[in-house]
């Protein structure tokens, strides 16, 4: 596993999470979008749109279903950027 403090992509994604982090949860690779951040489906949609536009990628709903934690999102974005 990558040391997240030194992973620039993790830092970028964390930055995108902040505006939606209403509870001020400490974000690590293990943070779960649903369980820890407690996002509802509308928040997820807005967040995904922000990530898609920042990295110029598409995260389909099919892929979203497989992503539970911040770490899994970092890995998915890494893969999608090629």
């Amino acid at each position, binding site marked *: 596993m990558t040391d997240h403090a030194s992973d620039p992509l993790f830092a970028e994604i964390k930055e995108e999470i902040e505006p939606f982090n209403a509870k001020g949860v400490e974000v690590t690779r293990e943070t779960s979008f649903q369980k820890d951040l407690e996002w509802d489906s509308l928040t997820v949609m807005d967040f995904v749109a922000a990530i898609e536009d920042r990295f*110029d990628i598409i995260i389909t709903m099919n892929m979203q279903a497989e992503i539970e934690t911040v770490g899994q999102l970092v890995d998915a974005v890494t893969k999608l950027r090629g």
Partner: protein
Amino acid sequence: MTDLFSKFDALIQQRETLLSTGQRDPFSLVMEEVKSPTVAVVNGKETILLGTYNYMGMTFDPDVIAAGKKALDDFGTGTTGSRVLNGTYQGHRECEDALKEFYGFDHAMVFSTGYQANLGIISTIAGKDDYVLLDIDSHASIYDGCAMGNAQIVPFRHNDIEALEKRLKRLPEEAGKLVILEGVYSMLGDVAPLKEMVRISKEAGAMVLVDEAHSMGFIGEHGRGVAEEQGVMDDVDFIIGTFSKSVGTVGGFCVSNHPKFEVMRLVCRPYVFTASLPPSVVATAATSIRKLMHGSEKRAHLWENSRKLHAGLKALGFTIGTDEPQSAIIAVIMPDLEGGAKMWESLLNEGLYVNLARPPATPANMTLLRCSLCAEHTSEQVDEILGMFERAGKATGII
């Protein structure tokens, strides 16, 4: 043992809390008598209907009723079979012919509901390596059509042309693409910028499906919907619609000019594996659709009602979903579910029925009182409605 129902506990709790305050359950109302498209008896009280999607008031049209009675006598109560086996009667053909004429399209396919039309067409035409792009405020039947198929699903922000364009550009050029839009979005009653969205979709090589459930009969020169109004009918590949709103009965359909469209009758499971509509239903639908082709006076009055209600509610201080009336749906935004339910009950006590809509069906977690106008509402009824809103709004402190 795990009780499979435990996942619903939070919802059961929320409902019980709401009802324990003495609030009447907004989701179990019974219409004891229906007197006309605009008046019913609820809890023994005569009530104006302002939440039925019965836009053109066809439910009590004498010609429509006569056609249904005749079909009932001539063809019986039901077909007891699938459209592809014993369930296609003369009336189903005539209904499809009426649709082809109404829209000026080559092919029409009638389903048992609009929900099934979306489910069937979307899940069948978009395969595993294809992409479906849809507005995030799409109707449940569109989402369920996506979930039933196995295409790659890409939602984009509501009515955001740039969000759609960016996503189309990110997709592989050679991939099959379907863009799904609605003419009128039923929660806020707002209209889609179809002109631009259809153009950029076609430029990206996508096929376009437009659900015109809430525009049929009164938007566009011939009442064909928002695509007609915005001049893009020729670029729309599929129009989905329903008989449960302007047409005034039940059923759904898809019309298309695609040369291979008829193959859908063989491969579309929600068309094949369910019984067809009863003869009386398709007879009423066909008659109603043909009458809608000549409904310009009713159309004009419906728009008049919509403008009057919108302006009146705004003047009373209510917050409305759209700045201007864009359709026959006027959505009044409530502060929260509790306030919305109180206002809903207060209106019902005044003798007015509106639709209470709440999350997750609504955008941005809003609670809405959705009003849908009917061409048969008189101008005096709209005045009465405004009086009821004023009294209920003041009594509940919403205005």
